[in-house]
């Protein structure tokens, strides 16, 4: 969806426009929020963050220009920023210190860090390709578990397996994945 399409949609029917954008980008925003918050937040925190992102996006409709560009990038950046805000709040609540050298802090500037972000992007691409090479149902299990922060019980329900079977497959899949990554020079 382009910026212009989004604006037109919102002018015609705000409720429908919001629904369309939400349905199209909900998974995308959820994955971004999960990556940032899974180490310190709960599922509720992630859902809260996702709703904050879309609230911000809908509020900023007047800022969006007449570009033919994809709305995805715009939403993605807001999602990253909101997730960082939430991460900070959760760490303050938990009384944890955030160092200025922290990756999250560095990302805020993001102006001169495109080399690092490019490397990160490349490594993520390799990781995802390797997860896909695991084959089903292991690919789905790992993706749901790590990119969507789902529990083994939830995954089991989604792919019609018992929680115990999901857990067993997950352990084996992770071991296999480590080996595959090791073969391309990424070690843990």
């Amino acid at each position: 969806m382009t910026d212009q399409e989004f604006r037109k949609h919102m002018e015609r029917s705000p409720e429908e426009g919001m629904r369309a954008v939400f349905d199209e980008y909900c998974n995308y925003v959820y994955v971004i929020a999960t990556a940032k918050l899974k180490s310190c937040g709960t599922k509720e925190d992630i859902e809260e963050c996702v709703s904050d992102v879309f609230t911000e996006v809908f509020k900023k409709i007047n800022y969006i220009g007449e570009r033919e560009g994809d709305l995805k990038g715009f939403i993605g950046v807001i999602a990253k920023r909101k997730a960082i805000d939430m991460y900070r709040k959760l760490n303050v609540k938990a009384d944890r210190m955030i160092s200025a050298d922290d990756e999250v802090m560095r990302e805020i500037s993001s102006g001169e860090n495109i080399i690092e972000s490019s490397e990160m992007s490349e490594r993520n691409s390799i990781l995802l390709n390797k997860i896909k090479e695991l084959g089903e149902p292991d690919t789905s299990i790992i993706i749901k578990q790590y990119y969507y922060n789902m529990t083994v019980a939830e995954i089991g329900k989604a792919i019609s397996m018992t929680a115990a079977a999901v857990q067993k497959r997950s352990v084996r899949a992770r071991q296999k994945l480590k080996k595959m990554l090791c073969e391309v020079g990424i070690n843990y």
Partner: protein
Amino acid sequence: MNKKDEMFNEFDIDLETADRIAKEYPSLSDSARERMFNMTKKKMNITNDAYEANNNSVIGVERYNRPRWIKFAGMAATIAIIAGGIGGGGYLLHNMKMSAPPVGSSSETDVTTASSVTTNVTTTETTTAATEAKYSTPEEAAHKLTDNYWDYECFFDIAARTKADYANKGIELKYTMQYDGWTTDIDVVYYKTIDERLTEKTMDGLKELYNTYYGKNYDPFYSVNAEYTNNYELFGPSFTSDTLPADGKIDLAYTFIEYEGELYQKGLNNEYILDNHWSDDQIDVTDVTENSFTLKRKFNNTPNAIFEETHGEVTFKIVFDEDAQDWRIDQKDVEYDYQDTSAAAAE
């Protein structure tokens, strides 16, 4: 689930990968989506209500009618000032001409004149463009090299942070990334460069722009945290539809390539344009030697819907380039000022 699994904790997600996962493996249940959408709607209503309930806000503007006669009075006053300036200036010039002492009437004037003549002759005989450049003050060289820094630095990085024709399909290629003795193929897409600041959209025009500001030892990819920068190169090869590699493979990740005589730039996510500018004209020049000096300048951006306000400082090492016979940027380092918002977040 083991949340401490370092395999995934070490990887922060990038927007491209998040998009791939969301498209290829959409995993949110209908109930979860509905819950989050309702939460969003509720927040939207709360926000709108909050705006409406704020009775202390001021709405609308008061119209002010400026009396018409002020315009004519202003015009008359302006004409009177200009006429006074011209008349007064002419009068003073006329008086100066009348009262100017004859040449040689004063010994003091003799010395001054002789000295200035000698200096002029010497300068004319020995001055070349190169020495002029070398003997320009560090401040002059600093301004010359960096006043328009933000207009050109955006082109010279691992990817250009400038406008490209993202609306049309780019050229899809791949390069082999090498790190720690391992290799892997990485997809890269090149989009046509359309930035109006590049008047000459060819590789030669781009190289000329680069060489105007940067010295031969400058590393455009240097960053304290960057690894494997040996995979990158700014200026790539030229291709035509006939010479484009059949397997789509290029040897390095070039920031720019030429295709059918036109410049194409590497696409990194979507448009990645920052609006950085110097905070003021203040320059801080230190460590001055005959052939080098250090320059520090403070910058900030214009915040917009995507980027929040950012402040920082760029430190340049400027050296005199013997080949170019002019000053060039040899090294640069950027430091950001982080604002501690944890107190605000705690409230």
